[in-house]
């Protein structure tokens, strides 16, 4: 639902059906709403069969990368004699994204159930839910739900009386965006600085504590019980256009818009309709100007591109950006775009782990240049320097944080160059005069 607004008729309420309903939080409330039937069913299935159901559903990772979930699960080889681990990525720190916290604070048992099913499917007896330290309420709700589940025998050494062990623990983060990167998340669970690891080896081969591990996003795991109960075919038919993108997605809408909040729509939904109808359009007296639709780590869109977009993985790519985490950041015509980009770059500079020179130096340098431009002391060469730097920051580092810094900044300069040039002082002869 467009939580905290009333559900819009064009939304598809699967994950968000119970947002705003406090009764859904408790174990009894969740069971009343059909909860834990999926887990009971799953525990009676062979892990390989569960994996096949999820594969057939077409579910793709909802954290940002969009990797097919069933395929990811199939990388976990059964019978290798090693302990397997499931990690749930609840580190939600991508600017513009605030959907996982709603899943955790309104339907914590949905996540417990999804994690339990996932654990069984990949042969894991232990699951860590990595929740960022700032998420006070989700932490409380998840701990309470886990306690209820343990007390009711749903989790523990004898999950639902099947003799299988399923342990789920919350691991609280301590303030680091980079710990949302799957290998940095594992480092953080192990009690280290959150420095991403180079891949290969991939987590399914050598993950947390060196053992085979799968990392899934909160929204991805929350979809699993629905898929098991209603069937892979049902899920795979939830699409408005593209046969490669199925299911529903929670889009977090924020910035300069009439009705910010979380909206759940079927993938392939027309973005123009979404923005002007569901989200209420721009604030009174304003026009939409630019959108970063996938959390801040994706290229910015002009309104022309946005209004032609169909909201799925391939649809966003076709219009010059990416679906990413689905955090829709909207800027209206009153915003100073260069200033917004400088602040975005500052975010990445702060959050860089520092391992890779191009990222550590590049994010900081990009921030300084942009802040200088915003302050009126920029040069045209600065824009070329940014393009040059971004080349080194893309595809050449251990993780994609530096790519994520370059993408919105470079695309903003390319698509809204006039905004930046307006701030650059013009030179007459050898004397610089103030910008217009």
């Amino acid at each position, binding site marked *: 639902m467009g939580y905290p607004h009333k559900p819009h008729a064009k939304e598809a309420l699967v994950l968000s059906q119970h947002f705003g309903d406090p009764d859904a939080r408790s174990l009894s409330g969740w069971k009343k709403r059909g909860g834990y039937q999926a887990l009971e069913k799953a525990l009676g299935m062979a892990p390989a069969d569960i994996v096949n159901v999820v594969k057939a559903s077409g579910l793709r990772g909802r954290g940002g990368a969009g990797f097919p979930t069933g395929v990811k699960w199939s990388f976990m080889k059964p019978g290798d004699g090693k302990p397997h681990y499931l990690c749930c990525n609840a580190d939600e720190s991508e600017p513009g994204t*605030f959907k996982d916290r709603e899943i955790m604070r309104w339907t914590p048992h949905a996540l417990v159930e999804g994690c339990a099913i996932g654990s069984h499917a990949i042969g894991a007896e232990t699951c860590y839910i990595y929740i960022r*330290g700032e998420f006070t309420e989700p932490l409380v709700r998840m701990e309470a739900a886990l306690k209820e589940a343990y007390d009711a025998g749903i989790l523990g050494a004898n999950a639902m009386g099947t003799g299988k062990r399923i342990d789920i623990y919350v691991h609280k983060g301590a303030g680091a965006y980079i710990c949302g990167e799957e290998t940095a998340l594992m480092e953080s669970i192990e009690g280290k600085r959150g420095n991403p690891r180079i891949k290969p080896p991939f987590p399914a081969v050598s993950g947390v504590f060196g053992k085979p591990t799968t990392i899934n996003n909160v929204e991805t795991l929350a979809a699993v019980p629905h898929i098991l109960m209603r069937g892979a075919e049902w899920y795979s038919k939830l699409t408005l256009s593209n046969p490669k993108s199925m299911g529903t997605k929670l889009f977090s809408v924020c910035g300069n818009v009439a009705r910010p909040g979380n909206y759940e729509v079927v993938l392939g939904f027309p973005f123009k309709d979404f923005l002007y109808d569901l989200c209420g359009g721009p604030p009174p007296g304003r026009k939409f100007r630019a959108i970063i639709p996938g959390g801040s780590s994706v290229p910015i869109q002009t309104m022309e591109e946005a209004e032609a977009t169909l909201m799925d993985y391939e649809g966003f790519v076709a219009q010059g950006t990416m679906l990413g985490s689905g955090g829709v950041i909207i800027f209206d015509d009153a915003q100073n775009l260069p200033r917004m980009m400088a602040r975005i770059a500052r975010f990445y500079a702060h959050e860089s782990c520092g391992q890779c020179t191009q990222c550590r130096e590049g994010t900081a340098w990009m921030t300084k240049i942009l802040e200088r431009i915003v302050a009126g002391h920029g040069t045209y060469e600065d824009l070329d320097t940014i393009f040059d730097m971004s080349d080194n920051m893309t595809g050449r580092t251990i993780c994609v944080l530096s790519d994520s810094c370059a993408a919105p900044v470079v695309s903003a300069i390319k698509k809204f160059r006039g905004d930046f040039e307006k701030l650059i002082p013009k030179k007459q002869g050898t004397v610089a005069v103030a910008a217009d």
Partner: protein
Amino acid sequence: MSGTENAAPYAPVLVGKRREELEAILKRYPTKMAALLPALWMIQDERGWVPNEGIEEVAAALGLTPAYVKGVISFYTMYHQHPVGRHFVQVCTTSPCGACGAEDVVKAFLEHTGCKELGLTSPDGKYTVIEVECLGACGFPTPVMINAEFLESVTPERVPSILAQLK
């Protein structure tokens, strides 16, 4: 050693109930090192920050060196390596909130707490105000954390009453 020469001597945290809690947490992981973040949270929840003695206590409990523990603390934004005001105010100013007036909320907090600058504790020791990165509540600008309390939809107008309700 901990920079507060007039403070009372450090009282160990990982004793009694907290020790039991730590032992239970240690069962969750195959290594002791993995209990580091949880253990550091215990120190900070009890003492308000992580003093050097806390670092030594955690290191001893987990079989790590104090230098290693310090290295981990310095990575994570939420652990305090110095004492902070009784009410630690963190205002999100990343771009989605920046586009919705977050900077005015920062100014309002600085003005009404008497903190001269970001990061400096107010003269009465009550407040420290800092800017933080995205708090994950972008649809409810501006989110503000005060210690562990998470507030949403904070506007400059609400700041005086928010502060008045703090002890």
